[in-house]
């Protein structure tokens, strides 16, 4: 029987390999990101709202939508030919399925974010390069939050009717704390404030990460059972 980490890495690796080969989610995620960034750029009065003012919110809305696309896709993969049952028939530990999917989703969402960020800098003329390390830290922490809850919820809804509707409906309330935190932190960084000023938000997202990764990992097996 394989260990949790071996099995999880196998599963994550499989997801990445499939995505690498088909590139459907990455391409649609990317196109989606460009569209959202562009639309939000034009949907305001430029004399009233500066690029810098709208930038943080736009970035995070883009990340959120792209993440939801990816999360749904990750589980639709398993639904196609009921491959999930195939996973359950192996002696691999069930928790490995969660960790494998979690890692795979992190990679995937992270990739979309990595590609969207330069586009964002391009479209919105934001001076971000000197704050890049801090920004990446914030993005990473919030992404862990999205993906932990998203992995659990997408596993749940993939077995229901209207999965594409149920996922955003259930997921969005959970995204509020990391999303708001992310926007506040990004705004603060872009306005050249030190991170120490918004320490509260960092702690919030950090605590959220710990709480929800734990809860999601524990509850995942509950939803797998039949």
């Amino acid at each position: 029987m394989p260990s949790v980490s071996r099995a999880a890495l196998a599963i994550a690796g499989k997801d990445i390999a499939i995505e690498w080969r088909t590139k459907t989610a990455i391409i649609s995620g990317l196109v989606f990101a460009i569209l959202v960034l562009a639309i939000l750029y034009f949907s305001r009065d430029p004399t009233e709202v500066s690029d810098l003012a709208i930038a943080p919110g736009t970035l995070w809305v883009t990340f959120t939508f792209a993440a939801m696309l990816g999360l749904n896709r990750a589980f639709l993969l398993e639904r196609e030919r009921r491959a999930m049952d195939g996973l359950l028939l192996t002696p691999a530990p069930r928790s490995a399925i969660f960790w494998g999917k979690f890692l795979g989703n992190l990679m995937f969402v992270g990739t979309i974010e990595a590609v969207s960020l330069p586009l964002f800098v391009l479209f919105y003329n934001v001076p971000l390069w000197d704050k890049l390390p801090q920004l990446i830290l914030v993005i990473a922490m919030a992404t862990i939050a999205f993906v932990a809850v998203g992995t659990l919820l997408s596993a749940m809804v993939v077995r229901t009717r209207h999965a594409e509707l149920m996922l955003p409906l259930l997921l969005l309330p959970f995204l509020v704390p990391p999303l708001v935190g992310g926007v506040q932190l990004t705004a603060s960084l872009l306005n050249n404030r030190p991170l120490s000023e918004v320490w509260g938000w960092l702690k919030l997202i950090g605590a959220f990460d710990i709480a929800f990764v734990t809860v999601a990992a524990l509850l995942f097996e509950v939803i797998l059972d039949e």
Partner: protein
Amino acid sequence: MNRRDSAIRLARSGRIVTMLSLVLLAGIYVRALVFTPIERTQGAAQKIFYVHVPSAWCAFLAFGVCGLLGIAYLWLKDRRMDLLASSSAEVGIAFGVIILTTGPIWGKPIWGHWWTWDARLTSTLFLFLLFVGYLVLRGVVTDPDLRARFSAVIGIMGLVLIPFIHLTVYLFRTAHPMPIVLKPSAPSLPNVMLVTLLLSFGVFTLLYVGFLMQRYALAILRDVREEELANAA
């Protein structure tokens, strides 16, 4: 006594509790409107506070109970926990509607707009939406055991989410006056108002219990009917 009869008795008791609390609620209104002084800065409109705050408490109580029952269900696998949890969620949504409508009614005369992104309203809104999602999820899952398990998961996650939503809104600047009673330091309401508020809390909690009893009785009756249909087939 079989399940159907005990459910009907529960519904009857629930109706009595509800009616009692509605009568008491009328008493609270009288006390609030006539016997409690008008607040200096906000005027008569502040009195909606006595309805708004306890409703918020009830909504969070309902969702919290739902989450706790979710844990109980996963542990004990007792279907009744699931029925009680979903009943509590529905009652919570009813209270949520009360807050989300009375909030704006309060806000308009004081701040001039219907909606403000203040602490209580915003927290309630997100939890409300989550539990609407909870009910929609229950609607699309046909297998009762799967439905109970999924509901328990969402309920538990919602329970964990509540403090984070509060914290988020707290950190974010708000236009709502700081919760007068629930400030970390001693409550700064004058005694008369405090008593009215506490009485209101009690009555609303009683109202929650009354609603819950009736809704749960209905859930049991439906379950009994399902059992009969299945056995007849």
